[in-house]
C-alpha cells in the first residue's frame, strides 16, 4: 500500500507540473530551438571553423504579444508557415500592415495589406520568406523571440538592426 500511494502522489505531481508547463508555454513564455541558418548571424551563426557549431541556438519566445498583435519593425517572430501549417519558422518583421515596402531584388514597391506583415530572414541568401510567398497574415504569428538563452556565450537580447533605405509612407 505504501508504494502505490507513493506512485499516486508522484503521478499527481507529474500531471500538475505538466498542466502548468503546457499552460505557461502556450500563453506566456517558452523556449524553442532554432534550426537552419536563415537568421544568421543573429541566430545560429555559421562560423568558419567547425568548433562552436555543436548545437542549435535556443531562444526565449514570449506569447503575451498575441493579445494585441502589436508588433514593431525588427521584431523576430515565430510563425506557422503559410505553405505547411505543421512547420514553424523564425524570421524578422520588416514591414507592418498598411506600409509601402520597397523590395531589394526587383526594385518594385508594394503595399502590405491590412492584417498582414512582410517577414525576411537576416541571411538573405538562404532564407524562405516573404520574398517567396508574399506577406503573411498576422494571425499566423505564434510568438515573439526576445532573447537567446543558449549557447551561454551568446546569451542576450535580440537586437533589431536599423534598416537603411526603407521608409514607411
Amino acid at each position, binding site marked *: 500500500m505504501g508504494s502505490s500511494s507513493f506512485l499516486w502522489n508522484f503521478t499527481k505531481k507529474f500531471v500538475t507540473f505538466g498542466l*502548468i508547463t503546457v499552460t505557461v508555454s502556450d*500563453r506566456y513564455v517558452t523556449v524553442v530551438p532554432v534550426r537552419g541558418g536563415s537568421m544568421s548571424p543573429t541566430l545560429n551563426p555559421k562560423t568558419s571553423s567547425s568548433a562552436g557549431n555543436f548545437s542549435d541556438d535556443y531562444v526565449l519566445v514570449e506569447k503575451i504579444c498575441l493579445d494585441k498583435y502589436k508588433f514593431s519593425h525588427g521584431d523576430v517572430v515565430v510563425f*506557422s508557415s*503559410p505553405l505547411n*501549417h505543421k512547420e514553424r519558422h523564425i524570421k524578422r518583421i520588416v514591414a507592418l500592415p498598411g506600409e509601402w515596402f520597397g523590395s531589394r531584388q526587383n526594385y518594385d514597391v508594394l503595399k502590405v495589406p491590412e492584417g498582414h506583415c512582410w517577414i525576411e530572414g537576416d541571411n538573405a541568401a538562404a532564407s524562405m520568406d516573404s520574398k517567396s510567398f508574399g506577406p503573411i*497574415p498576422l*494571425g*499566423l504569428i505564434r510568438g515573439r523571440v526576445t532573447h537567446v538563452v543558449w549557447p551561454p556565450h551568446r546569451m542576450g537580447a535580440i537586437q533589431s538592426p536599423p534598416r537603411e533605405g526603407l521608409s514607411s509612407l
Partner: protein
Amino acid sequence: MKVMSYMAQWRGIAKEAMDRTAIAVKFLCCLHITDAYFCSPTHIYGPSMLPTFNMVGDIVLAEHVSQRLGKVRHGDLVVVRSPSDPKKSITKRIMGMEGDTVTYFDPMLGDATRVAVVPKGHVWIQGDNIFASRDSRHFGPVPYGLIQGKVFFRVWPLDCIGVPGQ
C-alpha cells in the same frame, strides 16, 4: 511564547492558502487546455452565414482536434482567424482544399463566375450567404494555419440545438 503560537497559526493559514491557490491554478490550467486543445464555445453573429446561423447570434462549440490532425474537409464549418484583422475570428464554410479549382460567383462584381486555384497549404472559405459575406472571394485563399477549430454543435438558440445543417 505568544509569538510562537502566532507563528504556528500563520503557518497553518499560509499552508491552507497555498493549497487553495494550487487548486485554483490547476483548475485554470485545465480550462486553458480544454479551451485550446479540445473544445471551446464561440459566439457567431452577422448575416454572412444565413440560413445556417442566424443574424442575431448563435453560440456554437468548436473542436480543435480535427485541424491539428489535418482532418478538416470540404464543406466543414470552421472558425478562422480573420486575415484582415488578427484579433477577430470569423466563421465560414470550406469550399476548397489545397490544389482544388474553385468556381465562385460574386454578386457584387457582376454576373460572371470566376475560377481560382487554391495554392498549397491554403483553403478557400465562403459564407453560406453569398450576397452578404466577406470571404475568400474578396481576400483570397487563407493559409491553413489560420484555422482555429471546426464547428460541430450548436447550443443556442435552444430550439436549434444540434449539429448545424449542410
